[in-house]
């Protein structure tokens, strides 16, 4: 079913064409020189595809790709020459080494991101080169390793052309894997991490695990590329797997389009072949190489492929949506009126600032509970504590009777709690559909079930006509709806809404009230943080009022709003509180 949602479905044709290319290309190139370029292009294409996973999908920078390639290449080289192993066993060893290296680098993402991560990967790369060059007993040092064997295969790989088939076949298979990875749950989780880590975590994506898996996969893929290279050229030495090569892989992925498999392959072949064509203009080429990287970044942020794609998208109309088979089942099972969420003696101090101080309240199943209070009273901090983004200084938070304080957000989310953010945290570069799909993943099930829930969620908020648009192109009001649909698709039991009406105009606000009321009617339990008093009083069953981090009142809306303590708390900005 989600297939008919894809805007252009040329996938199978492309795969068929690719398969033909794998068979035909090595036959078309008759000279050793061009066959070799084909092998080199295939090996580097595989290596660069590791970056598609880690950088393109997951958004984590890695400048250590050449070291992963090196591990794979050394595995094959030393395994087949020194230890006389079967090629495939040697491959396994190289791949395992790269996987472990990927695991180590991936684990650093627990603590580091951005520039820090870039630096760690660079350090790793430099240390790899130093070891490969200087640990001569094992690596044979700068002399490198000669006499590398070719793999035993269905047919003997005793000529360059036959090996080119093998290399192109490997490229094709890895390409398919990486391409379909993007369409799996893991692939979507990766993209979610790239787009907005916090939101991904709050939607039940284990961001740390996803990043580690991405690095490990990237290492494995690169190591396979290294193995293909080593057996193609029958000789390796450490200077091939240097920092410069890592930068080159980055350039390949970027030029073609980091997120696209075909783009990366295109980039790899282009940057392998171009220097060969421009042999006579070498100096110019090298200067242009740096210049072109900058130009691509500035003018074609999605690479050549993204550019082609952008044009392609204009000519293809999105197909119509099917109807959802099952209605949304928000709210979960359980006796209405039981304590779904129980907050007791909850506190969060930032240094001397007591943002939340010994707050108690409960949210009963089925009710819409509002958390209000003047600016800086600790409402958002409360929501961040409940959803796990902050760890409480003290106190307890129980969801369905289970203690969740200190539990990581993705675990809490998978227990049935979902949330929206005050400042929207959408996966901006993705379509509405993908946003909602990622939200739907929280509840698991088959791909069809995930898609069906996503459809139902889109229908619930009324965004059917916008599913194929990228979120960043939507008006603000629609973006708010996407964020809610994204949480609904996971069919949460408890939804935390952080100022859903902020920034909306009057009409949109009324639509939001309608949506909340419909959700309420459907049985969804909600905890609502909102400034707009008229909205709050229209929809909420009960209220808790915070001021300076402490609870000052609680009860039915009319009682609370009449409570003198509450009136006094709002006195400073009475108009804001009661107007609008």
């Amino acid at each position, binding site marked *: 079913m989600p297939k008919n949602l894809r805007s252009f479905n040329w996938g199978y044709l492309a795969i068929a064409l690719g398969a033909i290319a794998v068979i035909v290309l090595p036959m078309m190139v008759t000279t050793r020189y061009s066959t070799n370029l084909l092998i080199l292009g295939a090996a580097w294409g595989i290596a660069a595809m590791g970056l598609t996973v880690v950088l393109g999908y997951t958004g984590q920078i890695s400048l250590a790709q050449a070291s992963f390639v090196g591990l794979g290449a050394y595995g094959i080289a030393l395994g087949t020459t020194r230890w006389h192993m079967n090629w495939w066993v040697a491959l396994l060893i190289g791949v395992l080494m790269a996987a472990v290296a990927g695991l180590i680098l991936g684990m650093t993402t627990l603590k580091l991101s951005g520039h820090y991560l870039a630096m760690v990967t660079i350090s790793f790369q430099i240390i790899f080169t130093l070891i490969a060059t200087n640990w001569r007993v094992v690596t044979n040092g700068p*002399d490198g390793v000669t006499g590398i064997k070719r793999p035993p295969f269905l047919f003997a790989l005793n000529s360059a052309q036959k090996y080119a088939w093998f290399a192109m076949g490997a490229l094709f298979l890895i390409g398919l894997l990486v391409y379909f990875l993007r369409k799996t749950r893991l692939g979507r989780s990766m993209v979610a991490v790239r787009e907005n880590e916090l939101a991904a975590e709050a939607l039940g994506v284990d961001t740390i695990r996803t990043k580690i898996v991405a690095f490990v996969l990237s290492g494995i893929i690169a190591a396979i590329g290294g193995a293909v290279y080593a057996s193609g050229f029958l*000789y390796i030495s450490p200077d091939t797997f240097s920092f410069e090569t890592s930068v080159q892989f980055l350039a390949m992925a970027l030029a073609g389009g980091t997120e696209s498999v075909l783009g990366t392959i295109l980039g790899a072949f282009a940057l392998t072949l171009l220097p*060969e064509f421009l042999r006579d203009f*070498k100096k110019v080429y090298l200067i242009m190489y740096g210049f072109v990287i900058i130009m691509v970044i500035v003018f074609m942020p999605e690479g050549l492929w993204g550019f082609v794609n952008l044009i392609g998208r204009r000519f293809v109309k999105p197909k119509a949506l099917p109807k959802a088979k099952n209605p949304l089942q928000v709210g979960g099972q359980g006796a209405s009126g039981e304590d779904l969420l129980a907050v007791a003696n909850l506190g969060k101090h930032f240094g001397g600032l007591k943002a939340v101080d010994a707050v108690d309240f409960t949210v009963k199943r089925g009710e819409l509970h509002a958390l209000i209070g003047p600016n800086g009273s600790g409402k958002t901090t409360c929501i961040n504590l409940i959803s796990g983004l902050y760890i409480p200084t003290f106190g307890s938070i129980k969801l369905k009777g289970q203690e969740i304080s200190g539990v990581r957000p993705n675990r809490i989310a998978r227990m049935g709690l979902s949330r929206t953010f005050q400042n929207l945290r959408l996966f901006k570069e993705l379509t509405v559909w993908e946003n909602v799909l990622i939200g739907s993943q929280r509840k698991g099930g088959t791909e069809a079930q995930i898609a069906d829930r996503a459809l139902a969620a889109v229908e619930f908020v009324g965004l059917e006509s916008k599913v194929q648009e990228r979120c960043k192109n939507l008006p603000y009001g629609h973006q708010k709806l996407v964020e809610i649909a994204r949480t609904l698709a996971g069919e949460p039991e408890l939804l935390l809404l952080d100022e859903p009406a902020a920034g909306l105009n009057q009409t949109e606000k009324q639509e939001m009230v309608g949506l909340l009321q419909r959700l309420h009617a459907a049985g969804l339990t909600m905890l609502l943080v909102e400034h707009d008093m008229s909205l709050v009083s229209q929809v909420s069953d009960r209220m808790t009022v915070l001021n300076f981090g402490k609870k000052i009142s609680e009860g039915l809306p009319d009682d609370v709003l009449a409570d003198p303590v509450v009136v006094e708390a709002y006195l400073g900005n009475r108009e804001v509180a009661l107007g609008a």
Partner: protein
Amino acid sequence: MRRGMGLFLALIMVVLVGCSSSTPAPATSSAGKDPAANTKPIKLGLIIPATGASVEAGRFQKQGAELAVEEINKAGGVNGRPIKLVIEDDQSTNPGAVAALQKLLEDKEIPMIVSSIRSTQIQAMLPTINEAKIPVAIGGTNYGLTHSNSQWVFRFRPHDGMSAKVMVKFVVEELKKTKIAVVHNTDAFGNGGRDMVIEALKPYNLKIVSDQGFNTDEKDFTGVISALKQSGADAMVSYIANSPDLGILAKQMKQQNLNITWVGSPSITGQDGIKLAGDSLNGTYGIADYNADSSPKAKAYQTAYKAKYNNEEPDHYSAWSYDAVTIFAEVMKKNPDLKADALRTALLAIKGFQGAEGEYTFDKNGDGLDHYNIVQNNNNTFKLAKTLHVPRD
């Protein structure tokens, strides 16, 4: 997402077809019989690092080869046929070197190839050379290059085993030093040299007193210098290819007052090293496969080189490729059919041929030279101290 796949494939195909079809048709085998073909230029392949880390060596290598070609063609070429160089860039990388070699091999009119100076890249090309079965001249000095059962590589420089033997012989027998340290880059050249020095000291029952390796582009040698001081070495043998490393080391040794007998690998006599080190290299010894005073032929080469290249001093980077082209032309004269096997046999038969570097006699491994000149730096002019021959193996 998948649109344009066809476009992409078409592009790749065009590109690859382009590669393959740009190769000229195989040469006719009738060359030499047809009188019209007698003036047809003979193509000679030349692989140089024209980009990347080793460009400097590449520039000299090209100049030496071009000087040789000019002289040969002026003197009537190879039986009337002029030589034409076909130059490919190895990009200073292994895949680049292999690609450059294969590009040249596609052209069946090329009977012989003069390849690169960096040992690693020659190592990478070896499988292809063995498969191609045509004579390839090399300038890399790594011992193993001619000792790995390849029938087709011919070395136009002495190898590191010889350089180590020469240096050790000079230090121990002539200078009477016994506490010898080795200082080297940790690249293939430096590590190989270090091993050979240890080997060469064995007959004298000596061991090195200190082994100081450092990575290329090191900026501070205080660690190396203090280790040398503490080791009590009275002489050091160095294998350093990178001239900035050499320059900084020499300067800092003087600054930190380490005065020690120093015999260095060829770069110590190179122009770059002298420019950077200033007077710090004064008094050091260096080995040079090329020295202008070593023979009249070497002198003549210097004169011709300076005349052609703006008064630039020639060094071994150019001399070896000059000799390679000259000797290749010589064997081609005797074998106008340009059959690889005959050319190879003719090369192996070369005995006592006087080149700019010295007297070439090829042994069964393909090594042409067995000597080094030892020169002393005397205020940045070089005085020939001794020419030492060593037994081959």
